[in-house]
């Protein structure tokens, strides 16, 4: 359950037997070819995998820059890679004889993916969402309810993802005998990071295969890190190629000195947060710091333990991208390539352009696009 020094099970002890049961069920399922076949089949038929790799044609002005390819998970089911792990976890819950699922959602993406998959399996689905987030994401709220989810708007605390996660975890503690908690990211207590990582690894397998088919391997794989599901997903297939740079892109926020940001891999401390020891944005007293980013999905103070270890061990490098640079990258990609990506992806694109500028045209940079930009239209193009 550890990635280097990171990971573990820092949970209320009552959850330990639940986690132990989940761990053994996951190991059993993951070793079962029938489970894997069902999962793969639904990834294809229901989620819409494999997603393509698109080469960008006009991103790098310089003639000397590397080619940039986008891994297009914005083209999956409901426009995001969350479906991969929601599908895996719901399948596993069904196999374990659990009848319901519970999850939390911030920007709504994980909630939508989980609600849809749960509907597909006729599993009652409870989703907690902070009241402030719910007010900002009314289309997402409507969509989750359209899939029949019991969406509970949380008025507690900061009325955002923190409050929602807290409520979902406590709901799960109360109903763990019948209900699976669906994690949106490879964070939290073991076996969640391992399990979500395994379900998301399909992104990396596809990417590697697609690059090999195209006759090239990337010089760098670039991904923006929020919860880390897409980052782990795409990095997984390249970790053992030391010549391939893994670049974890963090949200630098406004970029002003002293302002809040979300760059906990580069600037965080070792801490214990949401069930695992990992790199955390907290102060000297261990209090979690406020985060800030124009990209709702990147403003998270914790990190996936596996990513923390990749950074701490030097295997992955980190880059910080400001709100403005990310927004400009989203706009540039829309106007020049006809591809509307999320602000999360915009951070990665901005970083990739810089990286590609320092490489040769014979090189290739792969950028993870976890989700489409429809959700961010009003942020990137505010009303004039």
């Amino acid at each position, binding site marked *: 359950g550890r990635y280097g020094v990171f990971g*573990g*099970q*820092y*949970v*209320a*002890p*009552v959850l*330990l*037997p*639940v986690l*132990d049961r989940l761990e053994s069920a996951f190991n059993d399922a993951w070793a079962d070819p029938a489970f894997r076949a069902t999962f793969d089949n639904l990834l294809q038929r229901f989620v819409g995998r494999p997603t393509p790799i698109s080469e960008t044609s006009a991103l790098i002005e310089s003639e000397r820059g590397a080619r940039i390819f986008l891994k297009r998970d914005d083209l999956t089911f409901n426009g995001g890679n969350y479906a991969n792990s929601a599908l895996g976890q719901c399948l596993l819950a069904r196999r374990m004889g659990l009848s319901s699922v519970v999850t939390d959602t911030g920007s709504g993406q994980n909630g939508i993916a989980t609600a849809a998959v749960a509907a597909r399996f006729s599993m009652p689905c409870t989703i907690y969402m902070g009241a402030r987030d719910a007010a900002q994401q009314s289309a997402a709220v409507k969509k989750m309810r359209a899939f029949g989810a019991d969406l509970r708007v949380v008025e*507690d*605390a900061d009325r955002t993802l*923190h409050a929602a*996660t*807290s409520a979902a*975890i*406590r709901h799960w*503690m*109360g109903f*763990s005998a019948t209900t699976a908690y669906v994690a949106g990211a490879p964070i939290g207590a073991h076996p969640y990071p391992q399990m979500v990582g395994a379900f998301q690894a399909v992104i990396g397998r596809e990417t590697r295969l697609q690059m090999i088919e195209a006759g090239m391997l990337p010089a760098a794989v670039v991904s923006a890190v929020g919860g880390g599901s897409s980052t782990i997903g795409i990095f997984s297939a390249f970790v053992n190629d030391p010549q391939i740079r893994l670049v974890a892109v963090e949200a630098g926020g406004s970029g002003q000195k002293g302002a809040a940001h979300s760059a906990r891999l580069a600037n965080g*401390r*070792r*801490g*214990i*947060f*949401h*069930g695992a*020891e990992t790199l*955390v944005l*907290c*102060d*000297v*007293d*261990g*209090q*979690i710091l406020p985060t800030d980013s124009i990209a709702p999905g990147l403003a998270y103070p914790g990190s996936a333990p596996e990513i923390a270890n990749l950074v701490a061990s030097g295997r992955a490098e980190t880059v910080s991208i400001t709100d403005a640079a990310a927004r400009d990258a989203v706009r540039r990609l829309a106007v020049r390539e006809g591809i509307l990506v999320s602000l999360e992806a915009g951070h990665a694109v901005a970083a990739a352009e810089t990286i590609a500028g320092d490489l040769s045209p014979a090189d290739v940079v792969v950028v993870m696009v976890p989700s489409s930009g429809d959700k961010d239209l009003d942020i990137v193009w505010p009303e004039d």
Partner: protein
Amino acid sequence: MARKMQVPRIDAMFARLKGEGRKAFVTYTVASDPSFAESLERLNAFAAAGIDLIELGHPYSDPILDGATIQKANRRGLAAGGNLSRTLELVAAFREHDDVTPVILMGYSNPLLAMGYEAFAERAAKAGVDGIIAADFPIREADSLLDALARHGLVMVPLAAPTLAPEDFAVEKPGIGGFLYCIPVVGPTGGPSASLEAIGEAVERCRAVSKLPVMVGFGVKTPEMAAGVAAVADGVIVATSLIDHLDAKRATLSAADYAAEIPRAIIEYRCAIDAGS
């Protein structure tokens, strides 16, 4: 290091209560809620009103496992400048007048890690802390923490629940001790209560695998229920319902009447527990 040779306060408390044929009455408050000074006053009021052991929450920004009542109390404590360091100072201030009532720090693990387990244990022991309860720090993860606690004469109080395997709470190891904090109902603090039968079974299950005294927390909401719990356990922990009660009174009573309300409420529980013992 002379302290180490003394009987630890928690053990002394159980010995005393046993001699009196009584059960322990434990309550909870968050340090610096609503201010350092008022918090200190409240600790003194607890001791004066006959609380046997105090669980003192150190305020944390993300009390994810707690219900709304305690989340709010944490936010108030933080807003008043509370944190782990300041909580240790509060205990030290309390110890200036009370060297008997055991104080257990309760909270989350990140502030402990941030301070460093060794530094924490050393400072906590010096301040007069007796042990800790960590909401998100299972024994299976706690080796270095337990080592540090043991080196300074502190204990971690294991959380026990009916669904837990014995190796997750009934562990004999330096740094573990005090009592078992038995959670008969699986759910958030302040949530629905377990039946007295379920509580009895949970306590029996604890006694079957551990020699530590067993105190019951989570969901003890009325003096009557406290009496029922006292009949089967070694102590009763009343947290959320007492905070809710006092919070409600603070809004409606004069300062003087509110000051009187704390001992009044505590004595009501106290009598019920003693009657049930």
